[in-house]
């Protein structure tokens, strides 16, 4: 630390031990790095790499069953690892502050946001007069570029958007002008356009407040956009660190190379032949959510507005858009989990919207869904085999036939045949998603609806699952409606793409054409906000071919 200027954060040889019964003994194993003023250091790794544990250790917010077993952490000249509990309380907030991943759960839902920012000031600076606190709150809200701070101070967290909540969190973190801000996946739960704004905000605040940021992320796009220094972690160890240009363009470690290779990038499929036939045709679909309490007023939300499209046999149609744009509502409508207000859904010559009872039941198997969260889409109490044969048996297959077919499907999706006898918790996220795909295929559907099937997975797993989709399409040849928020993924897998905004399809067309020559301003906005478009990740050549 002798070299000037002294770093704000220096982590030296940090080790954190895990309780017994885990796959390794150390969650963090001999990690060292530094964060300087006006610098954004990105800690990147897949789930289980120990990056979040490192952040928690720095804040001294480790879970009780994790203990620091070696090394030291120095924040702004003060050793955190040996500090007393009271001193730590003073340090948190004043010298270091944390921004969490999920801005909805990190804010108190029953407290006005202005009050929550003020609370930080009141606790750490009790002598500060109330008027000054109020003024400072407004100033902070201005700093994080919140519109109309005067009105927003009185809002409750549920009344503002996700991006605004994250800004409030950042304002709270900034309240005492800490030297170090630790942000744990601050943009993962946000839409791409919001993410871009928040990342820009970090950069801006850094120079203004002269602080340092430790940013934890799994997204190389984020790294290439904002990082001054990158630390790549795997299994609790640092595998590589350095300037982003160096790490991203010329990675020296195999793991880094593999990770970067797995980052989705724009890559278009060969043009899908025009077809007059369609397996699914949706015309002028409307869906309105009504909430009506016993006494209260009615509230109406228009989730789908005149949605019209069709899918040809063997074609994959992508649906992209930000959260709240109606993507998932569309899926629910097609699955008949929600009943459409108006419009037709035509499959095999029949209008689904009017089917009821026995007819609806018969039709069910023609559309199957793959869900976003593989951890929630398999019944944890039932063996995989039981989940897999449930549907076919319901439709009259014998248990032995269904089981035989389930075994074949396991092999088809790249799992062992004996996987059927095991419970879901014995599988990783990627494997679970494979099981879910097999479950959908077991019903022999004509159309598969995949709702963000890879967004809960690590990038390397993401790439594998996408590859599986591609293989299965070639082998079996089903039609698919693929919902995603990531345009890069959409470009890899979709023949055509529909862009949704506020319940409407604003643009629809062949993927390559639509991404190269976007007509609608919203499509352009989405494309511009896609992370990692700087030439670091996209090699110059692929960039040219992509856009």
């Amino acid at each position: 630390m002798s070299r000037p200027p002294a770093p704000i954060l220096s982590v030296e040889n940090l080790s954190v031990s895990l309780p017994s019964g885990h796959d390794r003994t150390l969650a963090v194993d001999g990690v060292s790095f530094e964060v300087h003023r006006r610098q954004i250091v990105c800690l990147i790794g897949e789930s289980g790499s120990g990056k979040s544990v490192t952040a928690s250790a720095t804040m001294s917010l480790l879970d009780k069953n994790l203990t620091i077993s070696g090394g030291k952490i120095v924040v702004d000249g003060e050793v955190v690892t040996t500090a007393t509990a009271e001193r730590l309380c003073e340090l948190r907030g004043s010298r270091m502050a944390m921004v969490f991943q999920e801005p909805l759960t990190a804010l108190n839902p029953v407290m006005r946001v202005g009050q929550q920012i003020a609370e930080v000031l009141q606790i750490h600076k009790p002598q500060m007069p109330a008027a000054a606190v109020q003024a400072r709150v407004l100033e902070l809200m201005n700093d994080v570029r919140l519109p109309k701070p005067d009105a927003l101070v009185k809002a409750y967290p549920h009344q503002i958007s996700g991006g605004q909540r994250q800004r409030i969190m950042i304002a709270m973190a900034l309240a005492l002008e800490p030297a170090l801000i630790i942000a744990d996946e601050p943009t993962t739960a946000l839409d791409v356009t919001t993410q871009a704004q928040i990342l820009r905000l970090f950069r801006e605040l850094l120079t203004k407040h002269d602080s340092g940021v430790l940013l934890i992320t799994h997204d190389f796009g984020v790294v290439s956009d904002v990082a001054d220094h990158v630390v790549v972690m795997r299994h609790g160890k640092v595998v590589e660190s350095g300037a982003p240009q160096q790490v991203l363009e010329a990675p020296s470690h195999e793991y880094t190379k593999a990770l970067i290779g797995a980052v989705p990038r724009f890559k278009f499929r060969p043009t899908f032949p025009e077809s007059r036939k369609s397996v699914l045709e949706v015309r002028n679909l409307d869906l309105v959510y009504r909430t009506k309490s016993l006494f209260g007023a009615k509230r109406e939300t228009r989730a789908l507005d005149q949605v019209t499209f069709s899918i040809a046999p063997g074609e994959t149609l992508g649906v992209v858009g930000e959260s709240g744009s109606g993507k998932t509502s569309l899926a629910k409508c097609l699955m008949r989990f929600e009943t459409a207000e108006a419009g037709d859904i035509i499959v095999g010559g029949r209008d689904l919207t009017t089917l009821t009872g026995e007819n609806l039941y018969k039709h069910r198997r023609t559309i199957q869904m793959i869900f976003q969260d593989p951890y929630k889409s398999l019944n944890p109490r039932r063996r995989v085999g039981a989940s897999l044969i449930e549907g076919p048996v319901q439709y009259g297959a014998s248990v032995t036939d269904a089981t035989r077919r389930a075994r074949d499907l396991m092999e088809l999706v790249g799992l062992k045949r004996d996987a059927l006898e095991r419970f879901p918790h014995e599988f990783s996220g990627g494997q679970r998603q494979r099981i879910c795909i097999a479950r959908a295929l077991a019903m022999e559907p004509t159309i598969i609806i995949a709702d963000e099937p890879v967004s809960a997975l690590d990038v390397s797993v993401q790439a594998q699952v996408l590859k599986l989709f591609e293989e299965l399409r070639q082998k079996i040849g089903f039609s698919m409606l693929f919902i995603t928020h990531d345009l890069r993924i959409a470009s890899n897998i979709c023949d055509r793409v529909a862009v949704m905004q506020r319940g409407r399809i604003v643009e629809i067309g062949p993927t390559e054409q639509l991404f190269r020559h976007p007509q609608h301003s919203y499509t352009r906005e989405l494309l511009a906000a896609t992370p990692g478009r700087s030439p670091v990740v996209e090699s110059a050549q692929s960039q040219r071919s992509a856009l």
Partner: protein
Amino acid sequence: MTSVEATSKRPRGFLRQLFSSRPVAIGAAIFLAIILVSLCADLVTNAQPFQIRPRMRLHAPDSSFWFGTDALGRDVFSLVVFGGRLSLLVGFFVALVSATLGTVLGLTAGYFKNVDSILMRFMDAIMAIPGVLFAVALVSLVGPSLASIVGAIAFSEIPRVTRLVRSVVLTVREESYVKAAESMGIPTPLVLFRHILPSCVAPLIVQTTYTFAAAILMEAVLGFLGVGFPPDVPTWGNILANGRAVFQRGPWTIIAPGLFLAITVMTINILGDGLRDRLDPKLSRNAKVAA
């Protein structure tokens, strides 16, 4: 996020792990002992709880009458042990009846949106009636019997179970695996039974133990008020009621059944707390950091 993965892992030695919790083990042991003693009442007592001994009225506890005798000269220990049979039976049936009906109603209310608000307003109405009042009214109307007393007590316990089950159903209903089952055309009763009910079992077990304890107490209250079983039938409430008149001369007539009642209810509650900590960590006060 962290390496400590949050999987809902079901450990292999489930029962063994359950009983490795001290409250569960102790509670279960004492509770079993109480049940055994009541079942083997003929063996552990002199088997003559109803024998009246006019010359031994209000005999103080000694080696032949462990808990003394009551105003009629009956052995209080025998009375209490025999009385436990009926009290525990009432507790058991109330727990069973309220858990069964409450589960059915809770599943219905939680899963079918259109019946939810109507059904739950009925439950609210039941909860608004004081349980003791209702039980007193019903038992005096129909006449005391095991069925009427169980019914009267269970009636006011049902809404609690219903609310509990409904709350679980409301969250589980939205899980993707339930949606997946629906999309595979699994009939609704089967979805409820296969995919939703198992998630309700843990909180149900916990709630049932509390109901059990509450029912035993309630039966004692009814007996004490004189509207429970006929006064010559030994139950803890009746023994307490009989002892009330002679409390100053023979305090043991109240202390002995009171003690048994208190210990039983406390054990069941400790057992319930222990089970809750084990089965339902989210509700636990001394929950460990989410593992």
